[in-house]
């Protein structure tokens, strides 16, 4: 791109996938990831001492950052996540490494960056020789530290630490580890080049209630820290170097929206009653301690889904029963009288903590979730023991992820019963837990009536359900056009499952991302859902929508949708009916946008 350096940079727009709603005007905070280019330079003999001094102050700066990160990680994500940064600190303090680097600077009259790079690479290559796979992978810790020192040397990190009020995080991808580093509570928005609706970025942003967009392609190549940026996820657009006119338009729209769109969190009751008197119970989905505060703040009726695999701070490191027990007991206390539903480790597939599992050619269809638990019985037994012990202190239930059919449930329940009698035999208190099944694969949908006979409740994980019913990889941008939550096949599956639960007189909680979007929540109610579980910050907006609608109208719209042949037809109906029934609740931009053809 050729540009005149003296003039204002030209406004540029990117389209992407909106994964968390909002409109924000701010400044770019660019988060780096990946290779950093470092070049050798020969320095004057007289400057060697100065170069070493520069290296030492970079070390000191990196150290200060790490100490802060460690502390933040401990409070935001739990102490187990913080230990890893202790290893990083020790690496920085390791005299063997620092002495070698300083000696290289002196002998070769090299710039500090080059010395760090050369010795770092040398170290990594030795590490790559290690035979034990798990230990070898720990080379990434060394890489991380080297990266941090290089960053400190370049001085780029200065802005990173004091996160401005208007920071919009721009990154290629936001890795789970980056979450610990950033004071995300002060971020205004997150945008990434890659990712999908259920990527980590998306889940975190919705949890924090800030706008987010993913799949922006090459934004990172152009955005620099400090650049002006607009994130408009209502319209699926990011604008870099917005002109004063654009900014003004955005501010006007924000003003307009703050009148009707912004929902002030109220101490809700966890029950939303439709205008014709149908009660919908709203629970919270949580994973990180940082989100726990939202459960009470937004008035959730307990925790509908606790994704327990997020307890595993490090890939491959299984937590002891005692540590799990403490975590679940804390969870039960937090959830209060309504309790929490713990989903057993959903490891495998696209989850991050899956390095215990050997690589599979087709992980989404592979050994994951309950299959993984049944093949790793020790892991399963430890977890259910910990949950049952914690259930003696507060109300907890178990949900089995991704069951295929009755057999998975029967085997898991046998194991749970065995562990219960072992606990009781040992004189340990074991609380009552109900056992439910996640319905998220086609085989479970088709046999839902049978499964309903052997469980206490259903949970519908709509993220996976959409992916498996439509056979579309949700993290693959190329097939994003085929990923349609409002596909008639998806709606039919949900409807069928809800009916099966109703006939068996067991509760069915819809807990996927669909439940957190007002339009989808209304359709779910129309399909027969009376229990929803969602990211806590979504509770106010979903409550507001549900209170304003009549369930009878929702049912009639859903019935029409079920008769459709394509997702486009469904969305046409949704747009048309929602606007005519509830124009004050659903402005056109809150409804599914018309999609381009395939």
């Amino acid at each position, binding site marked *: 791109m050729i540009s005149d350096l003296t003039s204002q940079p030209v406004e540029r727009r990117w389209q992407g996938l909106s994964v968390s709603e909002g409109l924000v005007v701010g400044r770019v905070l660019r988060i780096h990831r990946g290779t950093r280019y470092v070049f050798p330079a020969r320095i004057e003999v007289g400057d060697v001492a100065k170069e070493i001094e520069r290296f030492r102050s970079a070390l000191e700066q990196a150290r200060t950052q790490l100490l802060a990160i460690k502390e933040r990680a401990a409070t935001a994500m739990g102490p187990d996540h913080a*230990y*890893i940064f*202790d*290893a*990083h600190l*020790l*690496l920085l303090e*390791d*005299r*063997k*490494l620092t002495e070698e680097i300083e000696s290289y600077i002196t002998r070769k009259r090299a710039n500090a960056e080059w010395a760090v790079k050369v010795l770092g690479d040398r*170290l990594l290559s*030795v*590490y790559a020789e*290690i*035979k*034990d796979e*798990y*230990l*070898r992978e*720990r080379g990434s*810790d*060394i890489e991380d530290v080297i990266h941090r020192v290089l960053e400190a040397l370049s001085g780029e990190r200065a802005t990173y630490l004091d996160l401005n009020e208007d920071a919009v995080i721009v990154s290629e991808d936001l890795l789970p580890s980056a979450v610990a580093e950033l004071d995300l509570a002060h971020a205004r928005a997150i945008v990434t080049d890659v990712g999908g609706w259920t990527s980590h970025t998306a889940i975190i942003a919705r949890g924090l209630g800030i706008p987010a967009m993913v799949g922006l392609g090459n934004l990172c190549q152009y955005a620099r820290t400090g650049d002006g940026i607009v994130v408009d996820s209502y319209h699926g657009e990011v604008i870099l170097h917005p002109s004063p006119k654009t900014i003004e338009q955005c501010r006007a729209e924000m003003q307009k929206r703050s009148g009707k769109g912004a929902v002030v969190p109220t101490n809700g009751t966890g029950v939303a009653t439709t205008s014709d008197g149908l009660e919908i119970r709203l629970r919270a989905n949580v994973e990180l301690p940082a989100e726990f505060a939202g459960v009470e703040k937004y008035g959730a009726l307990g925790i509908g889904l606790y994704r327990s695999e997020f307890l595993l701070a*490090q890939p*491959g*490191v*299984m937590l*002891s*029963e*005692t540590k799990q027990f403490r975590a679940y007991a804390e969870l039960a206390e937090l959830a209060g009288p309504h309790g929490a539903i713990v989903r057993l480790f959903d490891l495998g597939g696209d989850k991050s903590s899956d390095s215990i599992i050997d690589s599979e050619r087709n992980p989404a269809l592979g050994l994951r979730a309950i299959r993984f638990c049944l093949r790793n019985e*020790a892991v399963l037994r*430890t977890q259910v023991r910990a949950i049952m012990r914690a259930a003696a202190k507060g109300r907890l239930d178990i949900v089995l992820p991704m069951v295929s059919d009755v057999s998975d449930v029967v085997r898991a329940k046998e194991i749970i019963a065995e562990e219960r009698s072992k606990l009781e035999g040992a004189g340990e208190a074991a609380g009552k837990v109900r056992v439910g099944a996640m319905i998220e694969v086609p085989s479970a949908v088709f046999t839902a009536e049978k499964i309903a006979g052997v469980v206490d409740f259903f949970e519908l994980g709509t993220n996976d359900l959409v992916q498996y019913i439509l056979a579309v990889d949700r993290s693959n941008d190329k097939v994003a056009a085929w990923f349609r939550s409002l596909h008639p096949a998806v709606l039919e599956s949900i409807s069928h499952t809800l009916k099966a639960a109703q006939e068996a007189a067991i509760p069915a909680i819809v807990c996927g991302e669909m439940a957190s979007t007002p339009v989808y929540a209304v359709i779910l109610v129309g399909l027969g859902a009376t229990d929803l579980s969602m990211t806590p910050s979504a509770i106010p907006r979903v409550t507001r929508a549900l209170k304003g609608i009549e369930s009878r109208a929702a049912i009639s719209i859903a019935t029409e949708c079920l008769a459709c042949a394509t997702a486009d037809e469904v969305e046409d109906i949704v747009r048309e009916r929602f606007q005519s029934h509830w124009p004050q609740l659903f402005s056109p931009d809150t409804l599914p946008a018309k999609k381009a053809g395939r």
Partner: protein
Amino acid sequence: MVEVTLAVRNELGLHARAAARLVRTANQFQSHLRLERIDGSLSADAKSILNVLMLAASGGTMLRAIAEGTDETEAIAALAGLFEDGFGELES
């Protein structure tokens, strides 16, 4: 000089987190502390995390710990305790 043979009991071995605990402990003592693979193929300064990581001691590895200095007995006892406890990563 005190010498003792220790087994890496936790499944994942001396990975970054376990190594960090080991090195932090080692640095609390005056004595020189070395760790060697039992076959003598690799040897590490127990106060350097890089060295310890390079031992590539996976679960089940046998190591020899050698301490020399004024507080050698205490140092060895502290290290032995960590190994015994599997660096806090043993399944209870």
